[in-house]
């Protein structure tokens, strides 16, 4: 076999002290379709961003065709033949399909864009992805999501890639388009192109790829050829054995009085009939891969989404809260620990004190006027209860570490004495010690009779914390696990929706 087309040696990248990639050696070869597998947060996205020039490695080197390179940006990587199709669509909605396809290097005639050549080029590329039905003059805005994704493929092909990176390229496609992509990848392989393929769908990986690389916690675990490992072995490689947070003991499973009951909850195409019940004093874990509707489920319960359908019973009352304010002041007070604490959970440049009382201003005031004594007492109680380590409560919350920031978010919501706490990946990006404090706090809150609905991208946390786990796939509950049945294998299998084949 000839030398690798792209080779990474000892590449590390970290964001704000958190290692996203650590000492990664990775190589891929021309004429192969190479799958990259890993759990959420394993470093897959960081890897492809590094290869495609979006991120620069802190240490280590990248070589293309044996020559070391340093890309200043994605444009340079593209010039070297590395083209990436990102998960987030990169098309500009208000330009035509033809404009988008030739955006980086439009055909020119005397310095001006040659529209006729541009449209001919777009037509040829669209024909290659069997999308002759797409008019190159149409605005991207007017296309459906699946058509847009195919235009994205055509655009990537138009850049004449040597290495084509497809990040979740098939997630929005129809079955027919998926088959088109399959065919295309075969053609590219025959032409000597290396395709890097990221997908959460195991059957696709099996159908398409000749080599597989597994990543975990920012490390490259193993690379092997197709068929050398069974599904079960791959799952085990993805999980690893190095997650050993300590969890507080769980009470024995028991019947619980339901606080929230959902029947056939639907919202746009993200929630496709979620049914569940959350008991008093229960910690209900939500599992599944990123983007299967977990976030939308929590947002729906918190009154953020408009147009949610389905039968909902919250406590004695019917229906969802109409707004976050209604959710937190309803008969059953609901709190949400949002996914992104920096933009949704906290007002970063305000002080710790201001953040802690932001959700409970009415509790420390009379007729809209703040009561300084109650305000100080509430802030002191929040700092004490969560053990927040800070110089002064007047410091901006952005000066705190990630773990302490998340504690401020928790303190803010505990101040309203919520009955139901919705948590969207509350331990993302925080240190192990704080994680354990948060787990203990969750169990203590549940013992007080509060109900917790808890999404985590880390399966070990779901297993360690939850009384019960439901797994979402494509906006539906595909599995419900209780007690001893909550195992990593069961959750991963359900997340990939392959439990039938696994057993």
């Amino acid at each position, binding site marked *: 076999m000839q030398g690798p087309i792209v080779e990474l040696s000892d590449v590390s990248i970290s964001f704000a002290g958190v290692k996203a990639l650590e000492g990664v050696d990775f190589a891929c070869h021309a004429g192969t379709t190479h799958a990259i597998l890993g759990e959420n947060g394993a470093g897959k996205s960081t890897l492809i961003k590094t290869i495609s020039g979006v991120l620069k490695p802190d240490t280590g080197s990248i070589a293309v065709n044996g020559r070391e390179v340093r890309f200043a940006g994605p444009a340079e990587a593209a010039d070297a033949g590395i083209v990436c199709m990102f998960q987030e669509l990169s098309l500009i909605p208000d330009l035509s399909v033809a404009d988008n396809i030739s955006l980086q290097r439009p055909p020119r005639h005397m310095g001006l864009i040659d529209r006729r050549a541009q449209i001919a080029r777009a037509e040829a590329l669209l024909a290659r992805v069997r999308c002759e039905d797409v008019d190159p003059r149409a605005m991207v805005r007017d296309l459906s999501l699946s058509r847009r994704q195919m235009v994205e493929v055509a655009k990537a092909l138009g850049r004449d890639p040597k290495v084509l990176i497809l990040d979740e390229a098939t997630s929005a496609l129809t079955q027919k388009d998926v088959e088109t992509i399959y065919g295309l990848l075969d053609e590219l392989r025959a032409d000597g192109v290396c395709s890097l393929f990221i997908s959460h769908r195991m059957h696709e990986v099996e159908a398409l790829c000749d080599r597989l690389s597994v990543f975990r916690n920012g490390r490259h675990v193993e690379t092997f050829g197709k068929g050398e490992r069974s599904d079960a072995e791959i799952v085990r490689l993805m999980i690893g054995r190095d997650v050993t947070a300590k969890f507080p003991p769980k009470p024995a499973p028991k019947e619980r009085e339901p606080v929230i009951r959902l029947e056939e909850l639907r919202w746009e195409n993200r929630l496709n009939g979620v049914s569940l019940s959350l008991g008093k004093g229960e910690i209900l874990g939500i599992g599944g891969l990123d983007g299967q509707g977990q976030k939308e489920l929590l947002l729906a319960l918190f009154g953020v989404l408009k147009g949610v359908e389905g039968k909902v019973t919250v406590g004695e009352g019917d229906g969802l809260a109409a707004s976050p304010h209604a959710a*937190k002041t309803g008969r059953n007070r609901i709190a949400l620990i949002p996914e992104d604490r920096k933009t949704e959970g906290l*007002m970063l*440049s305000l002080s710790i004190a201001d953040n802690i009382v932001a959700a409970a201003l009415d509790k420390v*005031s009379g007729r809209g006027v703040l009561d300084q004594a109650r305000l100080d007492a509430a802030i002191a109680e929040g700092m004490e209860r969560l053990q927040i380590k800070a110089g002064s409560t007047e410091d901006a919350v952005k000066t705190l570490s990630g773990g302490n920031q998340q504690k401020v978010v928790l303190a803010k919501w505990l101040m309203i004495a919520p009955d139901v706490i919705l948590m969207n990946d509350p331990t993302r990006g925080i240190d192990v010690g704080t994680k354990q404090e948060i787990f203990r706090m969750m169990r203590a809150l549940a013992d007080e009779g509060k109900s917790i609905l808890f999404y985590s991208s880390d399966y070990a946390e779901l297993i360690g914390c939850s009384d019960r786990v439901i797994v979402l796939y494509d906006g539906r509950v595909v599995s419900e696990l209780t007690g001893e049945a909550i195992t990593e294998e069961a959750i991963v299998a359900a997340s990939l929706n392959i439990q039938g084949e696994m057993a």
Partner: protein
Amino acid sequence: MTALTRIRPADRPILIAFGFTILILLIGTAYTLSTTGTVPLLQPSYLMQQLQIGSFLGLCAAGMMLVILTGHIDLSVPWTLTSAAMVATAIGGPWAIPAGLSVGLCVGLVNGFGVSVLRVPAMIFTLGLDTVLRGLMVARTGGFAPQDQATPAMLYLAKAKLLGVPVALFVWIAVSVLVTFLLARTTFGRSLYAIGTKERAAWLSGIRTRAVVTGAFVGSGLCAALAGVLLAGYSAKAYQGMGNSFLLPAIAAVVLGGTHILGGRGRYIGTFMGVVLIVLLNSVLSIMQMPEALRQIIYGTVIIGMLLIYGRGTRISE
């Protein structure tokens, strides 16, 4: 250096504005001493008079600050002010002032609805409403200055003196105390800062962002209307375009006082200092008998220059 580091970053613009105000006074005084040998700028009566004129701007800036803190902006101030003045003088009698203020209330409600519920960018919506108000007033007056006169109450508020101090100054101080209290001691004030810092996080904290943003616009409308009522009293009547010279100085005063133009940060005392600075700068330039063109150039340059100083400071501290 230690003295500088002990100053909280939030107070720095206020101190800079204060220092600059002193500097302007010194330059102006040096000029008058060298040309006429007098020091009018340091006489209390002259300063009082300047502050009396400044109180109209001060009222506009106080309201503008509420809106800027939320990260929005109110460009409808000029014709809110003019409309309120025209309505007040047209109604006359004891209801003149309430009628003028209710114009401000209505404008604020409409602005708040447009920005927070319809989610039209404030810059467009308030500018549009400003134009609508101008059209309405032109339609009513036929484009001429209305013949109505200000009522005695308006004249009193704008021109009379109490204990040797202009009543208009008392009005400005009363509004200042009220705004300071609102910002520092009420849930409304805290919500303004929260929304201006990160509207989504504030909303997800269960803060009623629509109501609070609307409240800020109502505050701005009321302040502009009050300024209009006073200004009509000061001139004894309302006239076309009386609010035109208040929009940019009001925004400039707020920003010179250290309020972040994108919201979330700022103290009222800074806005107060910003108004004083702008008023004194104007008056010193006119004492120095600068030609109008040069005055405009210096005025604009000073505002941009001071904002550059602040901008650098914050970037370093972050």
